[in-house]
């Protein structure tokens, strides 16, 4: 056997796939094979074994052992039931691994061994794989080669050879790499030079400082010497004068003038001081002028350098090889110029130092350093600002676009739903691009709303069609972009639901909000009669219900959060999006049912029957204007999914309560109130006063109620 199977007894597990990879040396060319076995239990580990083979030898032979049937494989048609898994494996192999092999090694001789001689479609399969590989990998030419002659066994071999294009590409890549390396080296050299220059400058500065200190010491010594000399002279003369005084009489002394230093000396001292001051002033002026000149020169040099750099960058893109040399020359010239300039500046400075005071220079240097630091800080700030501006621009553009449509666009970031809000923002960025036709469609809708809703019977259908069309368009145009959104917390399916929800909401927002008033006006014209009925019944019922709430059980009256619900319900008119309106309605529903959830109220009291009455009461108390029109708006333009949801349940119960209200318009309220009371009392579960009766009734009639049994026990 050339390829003995490596199989341990009992190692095969029912749901695992086994692969066997054998690497061979080609020099021996099938005559002397040295198989090295890698047993792999899972497809996950296939990649590593492959790499191992490639590390060991440049040539590889792959043997795959089929296990189970799997319908999903493309090649399953070419195989028997047993071999279908093999097809899948090869499918994986073709799609994922080939491209990686070509990067790792340039000369690979892959042989695929198909299991056993039973195989009937082997040749076809081999051809198919070769076609697949050649189509997938443009770099490689896959050729089918039968090894029946060599091995007398049904092997399938695939020979991979390099294309010329690939070689060219590789050469180009190598050239690019070399260029990059050269550039790096040049940069390093420049950095070294700069460092050397800095070191030299530092040394020079140190030397200059030392010289300054020496000079100062000399000057101080001179000044001290002169002072001592003058004092000695003064003492001598004083002593002489004292001797003369002793010798001369008083009259003569009175005629004599007191001793003063000679005029020449005095004049010399004054002139020296004045000269020193004048010299200092002149030096300062000169220094200032020189500094200004230096700054101007430096600025010019910097500008020139920048321009040169820009030019060089542009030129490097065109012709890298030629320009590198030129850049080198330029850099050399620049460096030379810089050197010269620096040398000149240094010479000048040394001359100045010799002529001028040392203190001023230190100050100027400090000022320069400060200026440089400030410039660096400014540049950093600018970079930060640019980044921030880029981020903000995207959001601002969206904001402007939406402002253009006159809709309120507010992003409320809740702590619990940060991921969903990020998703929302990303979806917005994708949808509302200025280049797309979506905004055009929206503007068309807003401008031609009267035409669209010209048929009073087809108002809702036209609007819903438009909304659905826009949603479809958005999804069709942006499927690829939306698919690659990052679902951080959620599964892919959950994130898809979220994305679809967001798209729906946004389309509602964009289309319905600007036209909301017009739609409501249209609807209110058609629902005038029904609104009148509601108003009539409200007028009738309001005084009765405020006095007496007998038709609602007393426990419900006290426990449910009436006031909060009455305050909250009218808010749904303020919102313009149907989804938000439904949300508010569900919130009110939650307020009513919250007492049951908390365990403050018995569940029996809040029946489906009572629930409509509670809404009935809240509607009468809340006094919502133009209620019918808003309900019709919601009924027709809210999303179907929402209407089938919890929000929809609360909405339908409100709708039922309104219908109940309408019935009261043509009836006597007092009688109806009595009827309501009787109906509520007839329900034993809802009557708080007749608990004992209710229990007995429930036991007799509705034994099936589990709660009643609990009470009984």
């Amino acid at each position, binding site marked *: 056997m050339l390829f003995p199977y490596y199989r341990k007894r009992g190692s095969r597990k029912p749901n695992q796939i086994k692969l066997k990879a054998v690497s061979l040396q080609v020099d021996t060319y099938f005559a002397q094979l040295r198989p090295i076995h890698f047993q792999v239990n899972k497809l996950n580990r296939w990649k*590593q074994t492959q790499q191992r083979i490639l590390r060991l030898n440049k040539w590889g032979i792959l043997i795959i052992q089929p296990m189970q049937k799997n319908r999903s494989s493309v090649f399953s048609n070419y195989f028997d039931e047993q071999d279908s898994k093999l097809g899948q494996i090869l499918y994986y192999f073709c799609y994922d691994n080939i491209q990686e092999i070509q990067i790792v090694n340039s000369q690979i001789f892959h042989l695929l061994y198909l299991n056993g001689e039973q195989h009937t479609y082997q040749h076809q399969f081999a051809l198919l794989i070769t076609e697949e590989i050649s189509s997938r990998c443009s770099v490689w030419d896959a050729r089918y080669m039968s090894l029946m002659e060599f091995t007398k066994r049904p092997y399938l071999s695939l020979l991979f050879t390099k294309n010329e294009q690939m070689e060219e590409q590789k050469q180009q890549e190598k050239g690019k790499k070399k260029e990059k390396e050269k550039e790096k080296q040049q940069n390093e050299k420049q950095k070294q030079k700069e460092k050397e220059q800095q070191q030299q400058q530092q040394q020079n500065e140190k030397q200059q400082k030392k010289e300054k200190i020496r000079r100062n010491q000399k000057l101080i010594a001179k000044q001290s010497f002169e002072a001592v000399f003058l004092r000695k002279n003064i003492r001598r003369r004083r002593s002489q004068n004292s001797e003369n005084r002793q010798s001369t009489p008083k009259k003569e002394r009175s005629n004599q003038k007191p001793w003063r230093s000679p005029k020449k000396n005095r004049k010399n001292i004054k002139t020296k001081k004045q000269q020193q001051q004048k010299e200092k002033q002149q030096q300062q002026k000169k220094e200032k002028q020189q500094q200004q000149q230096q700054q101007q020169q430096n600025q010019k040099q910097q500008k020139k350098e920048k321009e040169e750099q820009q030019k060089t960058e542009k030129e490097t893109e065109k012709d890298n090889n030629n320009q590198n040399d030129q850049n080198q020359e330029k850099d050399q010239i620049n460096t030379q110029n810089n050197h010269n300039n620096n040398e000149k500046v240094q010479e000048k400075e040394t001359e100045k130092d010799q002529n001028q005071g040392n203190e001023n220079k230190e100050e100027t240097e400090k000022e320069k350093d400060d200026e440089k630091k400030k410039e660096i800080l400014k540049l950093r700030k600018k970079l930060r600002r640019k980044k921030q501006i880029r981020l903000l621009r995207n959001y601002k553009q969206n904001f402007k676009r939406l402002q253009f449509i006159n809709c309120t666009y507010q992003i409320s970031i809740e702590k619990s739903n940060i991921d969903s809000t990020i998703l929302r923002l990303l979806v917005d960025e994708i949808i509302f691009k200025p280049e797309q036709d979506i905004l055009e469609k929206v503007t068309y809708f807003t401008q031609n709303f009267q035409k669209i809703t010209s048929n009073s019977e087809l108002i809702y259908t036209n609007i819903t069609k438009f909304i659905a069309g826009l949603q479809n368009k958005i999804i069709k145009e942006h499927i690829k972009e939306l698919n690659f959104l990052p679902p951080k917390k959620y599964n892919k399916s959950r994130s898809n639901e979220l994305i679809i929800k967001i798209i729906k909401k946004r389309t509602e927002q964009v289309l319905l909000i600007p036209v909301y008033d017009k739609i409501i006006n249209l609807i209110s014209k058609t629902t005038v009669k029904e609104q009148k009925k509601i108003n009539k019944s409200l007028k009738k019922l309001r005084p009765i219900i405020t006095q007496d709430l007998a038709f609602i059980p007393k426990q419900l009256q006290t426990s449910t959060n009436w006031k909060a619900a009455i305050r909250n319900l009218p808010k749904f008119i303020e919102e313009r999006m149907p989804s938000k309106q439904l949300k508010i309605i569900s919130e009110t529903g939650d307020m009513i049912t919250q007492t049951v959830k908390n365990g403050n109220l018995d569940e029996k009291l809040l029946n489906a029957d009572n629930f409509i009455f509670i809404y009935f009461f809240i509607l009468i108390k809340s006094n919502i204007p133009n209620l019918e029109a808003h309900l019709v708006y919601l009924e027709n333009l809210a999303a179907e*999914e929402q209407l089938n949801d919890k929000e929809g349940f609360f909405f339908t119960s409100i709708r039922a309560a309104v219908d109940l209200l309408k019935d009261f318009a043509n009836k006597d309220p007092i009688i109806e109130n009595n009827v309501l009371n009787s109906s509520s009392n007839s329900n034993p579960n809802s009557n708080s006063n007749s608990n004992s009766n209710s229990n007995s009734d429930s036991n007799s009639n509705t034994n099936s109620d589990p709660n009643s049994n609990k009470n009984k026990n």
Partner: protein
Amino acid sequence: MKKQKVVLLGKGRVGKTSIFKRFLQNEFHDNEVTTIQPQYLEKQVKVNTEKVTLSIWDTAGQERFRGLNPLFYRNSKAAIMVYDITDQESLDSLEDWLAELKNQVGHKIVLMIVGNKSDLKKKRQVSIEDAENLAKKVGAQHFCVSAKTGENIDEMFHELAKRVMKFVKENKTPLNTTKSRRNFALVNEDVETKKKKKKNNDGCC
């Protein structure tokens, strides 16, 4: 799968809410309760490998609200019609309810006729044959159930979920919106399969 709306119908005091609450109280495996309201329940039921979320709406049984009930039938995929086995009238009234339902929804709906209070066998007035005949006539499935003991409640809802799933798969409407969703899902599947492949390749020994 999307949420499927189910409506509970029947005469007053038949035991609709008690069935509703029994289904809520039973904690059989693999089912998850998402939202609970006194008249509204969302529960996930597992059928073989797939999951269906049933949003069950309890309706008012009193006769004065009978005119309002059609509002609750809108877009419902299934209806559980409850009668009391100790009350013949409750079974007779089901036909009226059915007529109302079909006026509102049409013939495309999954129907279950459920006889409650099966624990009260001595007081039984409605024969099983009558109920089953009605079920056959209407194209519904019949179940005898006791909300008190919990007999057949889970089985009934499980069967309902099964039938709803089958019904939804058979009657997929080719609306514009659904088409787009399908496309979207298909693309996502492709992306997911690619990811799986990557994961398989990235694993270690």
